[in-house]
């Protein structure tokens, strides 16, 4: 049956192994999305602070993270963190850290955008009717900001999932690496293996990200 290249996917444990590899990427994505959501909301609120110093400090953090490609940060953290801490850190753990730092910055910017896009009179009216600052946030700003935030935050999640594909380049054994292993094992018997394996990985990423994108689009329309 070796004339059908696609069979290579379903031989033995191959498909299961690919899914396992995908699981590694998804675990990194989930962990960093969770950390980024919490820290990002905090950062975003800090970015709306009254104090210029706080605002510009947060701003510098955001710009510093953004100005260089994420792959560069992965390399810098992978090699330098180990050196600075004198610790052998697993690549997966480094990926968690870098994606959380990046996700926090991006999420923070989205939160800031959502909060500041609300007209000022919302906050002022809240204060005028005697709500405390905390109550204004809790009952006036947050419910509205969340609706503006959620679609773009969900889009950020798909971006983070897509970007986790980079971790293979610092040596994490995830779906792409396992795909390469499968190709190497079967290259003599099935010359077209790499076509099918990369096609299936392409498709796997699509099948994960597409529904999430659709959901974001749906929310955007509903809350417009």
């Amino acid at each position: 049956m070796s004339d059908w290249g696609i069979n290579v996917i379903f031989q033995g444990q191959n498909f299961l192994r690919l899914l396992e590899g995908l699981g590694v990427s998804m675990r990194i994505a989930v962990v960093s999305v969770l950390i980024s959501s919490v820290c990002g909301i905090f950062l975003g609120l800090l970015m709306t602070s009254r104090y210029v110093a706080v605002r510009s400090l947060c701003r510098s953090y955001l710009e510093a993270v953004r100005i260089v490609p994420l792959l560069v940060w992965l390399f810098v953290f992978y090699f330098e963190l180990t050196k600075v801490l004198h610790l052998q850190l697993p690549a997966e753990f480094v990926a968690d850290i870098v994606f959380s730092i990046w996700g926090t910055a991006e999420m923070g910017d989205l939160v800031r955008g959502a909060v500041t896009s609300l007209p000022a009179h919302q906050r002022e009216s809240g204060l005028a009717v005697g709500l405390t600052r905390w109550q204004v946030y809790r009952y006036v700003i947050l419910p509205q900001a969340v609706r503006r935030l959620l679609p773009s935050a969900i889009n950020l999640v798909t971006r983070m999932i897509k970007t986790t594909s980079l971790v293979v380049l610092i040596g994490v054994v995830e779906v792409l690496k396992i795909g390469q292993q499968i190709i190497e094992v079967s290259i003599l018997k099935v010359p077209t293996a790499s076509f099918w394996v990369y096609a299936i990985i392409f498709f796997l990423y699509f099948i994960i990200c597409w529904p999430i994108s659709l959901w974001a689009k749906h929310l955007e329309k509903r809350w417009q």
Partner: protein
Amino acid sequence: MDQSFIAASIPLYIKAAGLTLNLAFWGVLLSLFVGAVCAVIGYFRIPVLCRIMQVYIELSRNTPLLIQLFFLYYGFAKIGIKFEAYTCAIGGLAFLGGSYMAEALRAGIESVGKIQIESGLSIGLTRWQLMRYIVLPQALAVAVPAIAANVIFLLKETSVVSAIALADLMFVAKDLIGMYYRTSEALLLLVGAYLILLLPLSLFFRYLERRLRNVGLGN
């Protein structure tokens, strides 16, 4: 830090930066072209092409560039369609960037009020004149911030092409680390090189955005 090592490596980085810029330039140009084609298809609602475009946009936006490149470069080679790594990289960037540019241009065109188009038609402009003098100037100005963000995004995305053996900045850094174990120096130069490429561009785009604010008329 070994300063003589840094000095000796700088020419390597300059050469690599040339390739990074070259890839980004053609990638951006082709993405703009793909985006413009998509925007036109969407604007005139051309029946079958509209469907194809939607499929393309969903595929392009929901898969990572790295996988697209691997598929293009290693996958297609095995079924007899071989591309040079350079062609693959530009093709991949255009495939990825096209959908982002399409979105930016679509938003720009949609921002031009219907009333302006109707007014233009009613004073006897042709569809071409309408596009040339009324829709495009405003649509482009509105789309500039998004296009600028995409340009920066694509320039940063080129860092992935080292995975298909193109000697860009990332590749040189990896090479130096692999050969000499000078990780700190190699990475410092890498960050520096990207800063030199990206910082002026991002400042220029910020200036451009400020200049183009309030360009929309009559909405």
